């Protein structure tokens, strides 16, 4: 096999475009993660997979080593030192299968091991590199690739979807007007001169509560035609990720908004707020905030006045890894919850030390990994149970799905909801 052949994708010989992927992915950060681990094993308990099942294969260091071995095979130790082009001769289809299974199905990129590593080895960045290799080799879970491609296709053919979407939004507007008994309620779309572009998720549950709150707060806003999710980031494909993010950037630019507000979604916030500027090598021409930050500001400033008696049941908050540890939104949800509910209780550990629920980074979309996911969520289920809360707030859709399923599996007796839903209940200053 020649060097050039290593990038060829054929049915007989699985794709091994390792060279291109490594050239792009081996940044300074990844090289440090490759070389910095001393295999002390202190990361073990920080992983929810290990906490649920304390086995060797569930240690972050074990997974990191697997990626190191794969890259070493592809690169050769000496070649790695001197940056010669990588060859992928020694990594066959089965080792790529194992790599893909581990990177997508046994790590949620939560970065809990990274913050607990004495050296600061970013195992998540190695797993993201492994995801990139697997995706480029055609080994990524098909559903994640399809979801990423569907989002790109929607961006390229928005005219085909626009009328259908607008019709449904009209219905939703009418339903919500009746529900809140307010004929002035509206869901504006494509409104030029709006201050804020709100990007929800694919699902009315992510649009209606925020719309009601924007209405009550008299915000000058408009709804995005796109959903905030970015499955390109889950599969470690920077080109797809950029295309998906670009749709929202273009829309915001066309409408001339001052800021883009991302609905209750963990990865979508981190992607647009923190990662996209790195991909495009420049700051975005508008502010990016999470709905949680907007609500916290409005609650603190008195623009939204809340009555905690409206939510009398004990409530706890699950810190999504992408919003909290990776996104920096630790206090904002608590500011809102303390104002919106009567009995707020913390899960331990919380904030940047919070455990992943096991549903992140695309796991909930892959049905064949359900059992794995349920097992990985066991530590979080136990922590929730210990709070005695009846309502669990999760400001991330993947977390909500996972926690709802954990509730059913482990009989937690809870209701899982979004932050905005509780705030809608508690608003006093309605129009």
């Amino acid at each position, binding site marked *: 096999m020649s060097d050039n052949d290593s990038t060829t994708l054929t049915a007989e010989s699985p794709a091994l475009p390792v060279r291109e992927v490594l050239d792009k992915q081996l940044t300074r950060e990844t090289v440090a993660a490759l*070389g910095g681990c001393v295999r002390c094993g202190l990361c073990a308990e920080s992983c929810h997979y290990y906490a649920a099942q304390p086995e060797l294969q569930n240690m972050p260091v074990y997974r990191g080593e697997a990626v190191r071995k794969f890259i070493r095979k592809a690169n050769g130790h000496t070649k790695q030192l001197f940056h010669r082009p990588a060859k992928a001769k020694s990594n066959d289809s089965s080792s790529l299968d194992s790599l893909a299974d581990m990177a997508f199905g046994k790590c949620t990129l939560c970065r809990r091991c990274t913050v607990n590593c004495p050296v600061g080895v970013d195992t998540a960045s190695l797993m993201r590199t492994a995801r990139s290799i697997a995706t480029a080799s055609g080994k990524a879970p098909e559903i994640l690739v399809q979801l990423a491609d569907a989002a790109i296709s929607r961006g390229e053919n928005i005219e085909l979807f626009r009328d259908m979407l607008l019709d449904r939004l009209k219905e939703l507007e009418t339903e919500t007007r009746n529900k809140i008994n307010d004929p002035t309620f509206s869901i504006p779309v494509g409104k030029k001169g709006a201050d804020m572009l709100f990007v929800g998720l694919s699902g009315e549950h992510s649009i209606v509560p925020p719309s009601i709150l924007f209405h009550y707060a008299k915000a000058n806003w408009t709804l995005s035609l796109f959903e905030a999710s970015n499955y390109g980031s889950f599969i470690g494909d920077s080109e797809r990720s950029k295309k998906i993010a670009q749709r929202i950037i273009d829309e915001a630019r066309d409408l001339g908004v001052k800021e883009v507000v991302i609905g209750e979604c963990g990865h979508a916030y981190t992607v647009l707020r923190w990662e996209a500027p790195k991909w495009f090598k420049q700051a975005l021409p508008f502010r990016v905030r999470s709905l949680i930050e907007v609500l916290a500001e409005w609650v603190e400033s008195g623009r939204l006045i809340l009555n905690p008696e409206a939510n009398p049941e004990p409530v706890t908050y699950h810190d999504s890894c992408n919003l909290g540890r990776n996104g920096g939104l630790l*206090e904002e949800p608590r500011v809102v919850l303390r104002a919106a509910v009567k009995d707020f209780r913390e899960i331990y550990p919380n904030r940047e030390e919070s455990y992943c629920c096991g549903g992140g980074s695309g796991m909930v979309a892959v049905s064949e990994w359900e059992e794995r996911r349920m097992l990985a969520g066991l530590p979080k289920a136990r922590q929730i149970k210990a709070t005695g809360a009846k309502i669990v707030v999760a400001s991330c859709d993947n977390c909500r799905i996972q926690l709802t399923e954990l509730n059913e599996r482990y009989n937690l007796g809870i209701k899982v909801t979004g932050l905005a839903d509780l705030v809608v209940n508690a608003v006093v200053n309605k129009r």
Partner: protein
Amino acid sequence: MIDIPLTFLIVSLTVALAGVGVWTFQLFSRDSACDPSPGKGSDKLGVLYAFTLGMLPWKKESARLHWMVYLRGICFHIGIFAGILALLLSIFSIAGGGTLSLVLSILMWIGAVAGVAAIISRAADANLRGISNPDDYISPALIILFMSTGALHVTGLIDAVYFYVAASVLCLYLPWSKVRHCVYFFFSRGKIGAMMGHRGLLNGHSGKLKT
């Protein structure tokens, strides 16, 4: 007349420094993703935090759960630094004095004991054994040898030649060992600290928002 052990040591040190140079080159020849996103906190304070308060044992769950391992690691590394100081004093024939020699010796012995404990616990724990490779035993063993001979030398129990040979062997092995983390440690921890600072993770739990 050429001092053969000292010459061997100097050659070995050069090899070790060349290894550190290669690792550093390898690291910095790669692109680093600059972060043009408007920060929610201070990158610089984050870096400062990573190398100060962030190093404290109660700041990390992993250290809280394994405080003995944390303490062992601290002792081991202090022993290494004491050994390096003892080696430099010996090479440049600087008389450290009785008290300094005694302190260095004690620190190196503590470091060596911590190293032995680390090797035993690695060998005894099935999971740790599973993730280990030969270097995980060779590197600490050579460092223990370095610290032990150093401790014996500074207290006058053995001649410098043994200390130099132990140091030389360690230096020759160093470029191929996991000791490379001494370069990556500063970069990785600094980066994580900068990220935490930039994204506002260190803005405190006062409830005061910085949006």
